């Protein structure tokens, strides 16, 4: 059964490391739904959050193939590790004419989005949250006219135990 998996990957911060990972997915016909990369506290390591999907055997292969890369330090399947927090950010440039400006702001208020840029005809809205929230905001703003949309892709982190 196909399932979405969020993988957390620590990789050596060396040239070509990202190309190896992306090439692996392309070469073996695996899917990348989203990909997010940045430096970690340790500047010699990069952190990469990768969302993919496939059945159990495919996901097992993806994880093993990633671990096989010499530059890959650690791979965790966040989806299988119990509870986790996931966040994504999107910037949405939405049409905001006289008659719709108030409606856009109302939406922003409800979803706790921030307006980060204003022009006579547009608002640029910043929204953060789990994927479902981003998608809900996009769906609701669509009828008002989305001019441009940029999403970061998902990042995720395991939740710590609530009791000591």
């Amino acid at each position, binding site marked *: 059964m196909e399932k979405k998996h969020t993988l957390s990957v620590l990789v*050596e911060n060396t040239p070509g490391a990202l190309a190896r990972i992306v*090439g692996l997915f392309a070469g073996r016909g695996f899917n990348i739904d989203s990909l997010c990369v940045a430096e970690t506290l340790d500047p010699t390591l990069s952190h990469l959050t990768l969302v993919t999907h496939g059945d159990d055997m495919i996901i097992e*292969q993806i994880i093993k193939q990633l671990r*096989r890369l*010499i530059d890959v330090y650690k791979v965790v399947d966040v989806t299988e590790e119990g509870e986790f927090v996931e966040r994504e950010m999107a910037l949405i440039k939405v049409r905001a004419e006289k008659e719709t400006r108030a409606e856009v702001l109302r939406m922003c208020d409800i979803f706790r989005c921030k307006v980060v840029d204003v022009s006579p005809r547009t608002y640029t809205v910043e929204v953060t949250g789990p994927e479902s929230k981003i998608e809900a905001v996009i769906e609701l703003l669509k009828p008002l006219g989305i001019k441009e949309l940029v999403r970061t892709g998902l990042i995720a982190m395991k939740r710590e135990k609530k009791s000591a």
Partner: protein
Amino acid sequence: MATKMTGAQIIVEALKREGVDIVFGYPGGAVIDIYDELYRTPEIKHVLVRHEQGATHAADGLARSTGKVGVCLVTSGPGATNTVTGIATAYMDSIPIVVLTGQVPTKLIGNDAFQEVDITGITRPCTKHNFLVKRVEDLAWTLKAAFHIARTGRPGPVLVDLPKDIQQAKTDFHWPEEIRLRSYNPVYEPHKRQVEKAYRLLESSTRPVILVGGGVISSGAHEEVRELAELLHIPVTMTLMGLGGFPGTHEYSLGMLGMHGTYYANMAVANSDLIIAVGARFDDRVTGKVDAFAPMAKIVHIDIDPTSIQKNVRVDVPIVGDCKRSLAKLLEIIKEVGRPSKLWKEQFKEWWEQIDIWRRRYPLTYKQDGEHIKPQFVIEKLYQLTKGEAIVCTEVGQNQMWTAQFYKFDKPRTLLSSGGLGTMGYGFPAAIGAQMANPDKLVLDIAGDGSIQMNIQEMATAMDQRLPIKVIILNNGYLGMVRQWQELFYDRRYSAVQFATIPDFVKLAEAYGAVGLRATKPEEVEGVLKKALETNNLVLVDIHIAPEEGVFPMVPAGRATTEMILV
């Protein structure tokens, strides 16, 4: 004590410290500094090839025949791209080679400079790892890491791209005696509990088979395989890469399995209730139709590379670890439990009776017609005349399969063949590498008239080095394996499988200063082969075989391995 050295000096010093005494290569502008250094280094023998592909296959042949890391050195651009087939060949068969490529100066990288190519980009999917060295200070460490990565874990090719200015720059030389890579820690020791599970499956099995793959050879686990088979009386079958991992002449050997495997090996695997797979990766040529592969069998899979496990077939007991150490652990448990060998024999008695019925019903065989030379007969004769003691390289296609079927390999590292990638043109340069590394051994290349022409230019290299390789060309005037498929599955529409021009191989040999021999009738074969084996020179033996002889048994692609076309 650190001394200032140029990059080129560091490279050559690194090769020495890694115990490299032979380098296969071809010079060019981007490696001229390294060649200048080699000029002053008599300890390292440089073998000048005629095409860079030949250099990689030769390094690979050296590696396969000795277990050492093979090395080649080529220039940037076309020199580098010409190595790609050889690198991919080594990658598919997990062969440790280090490929050093020249690169344009760092300042010019990305500028489409003369003879510039992004070789690390090109070879990323077909190397175990690769490096582009951007600082001369990183050079010694990088070379050490390259050898370390190539030879440890599941071995494989590593490429190091060396910009020209790095070769010329100077730095203090520090050689790291040990290297630790935090992101690369192959697991050698098997998990004991997993091995115990494997033992319990053996205890409850009645129809077990040991499946030997190339991992047995690269980890040197052949003794352990033999001990396990003999102690428990279990039949052994081998993949193409596993041939020699268990003696082919042993009464427990079922020979090769898979598309051109023996009837009894395929039947045994298909009917088994337990497969102990050691260093094999269940490639499609072995499994046939995966859904129909060994339907009743539980599978124990020992492999150092976790990705090989559960990739193609479901596995009941995965054991991640070195084949040799894993089998040693299993043998330890067997001895601890101390069940008498007799009891095991009793347990598998009916299984052996069944296997013997299969063996008698369809032995590996071929039909003589009294008129044509049968290729299988040639291989059998070669086996007899060499007493099975040659290092045998093959090209790819029918010549390769006939060799795998009819030459009985008793020792590891005696069959050198491109299994995974199936590279025509592999065998002859590989034979050059093997003969360079094993000057006292007899080295054969069993070829077809098609594949020998793919790297025939290396005859000059073999002559340069006075290598007495015997090339046996099974000449059927066809690209025989494709012809066979066209005959069986494409209504004999022989599309593009016949060369209008085939060179006179005898004259060709003579043109290079080698010896050319020819046999066109069955009664000539033995004499010609004997003469070739007695000749202390490169010999091309042109044997005109039955043009439309096929390789059988054969499992059509995508079918169950029990659906064999027999002779």
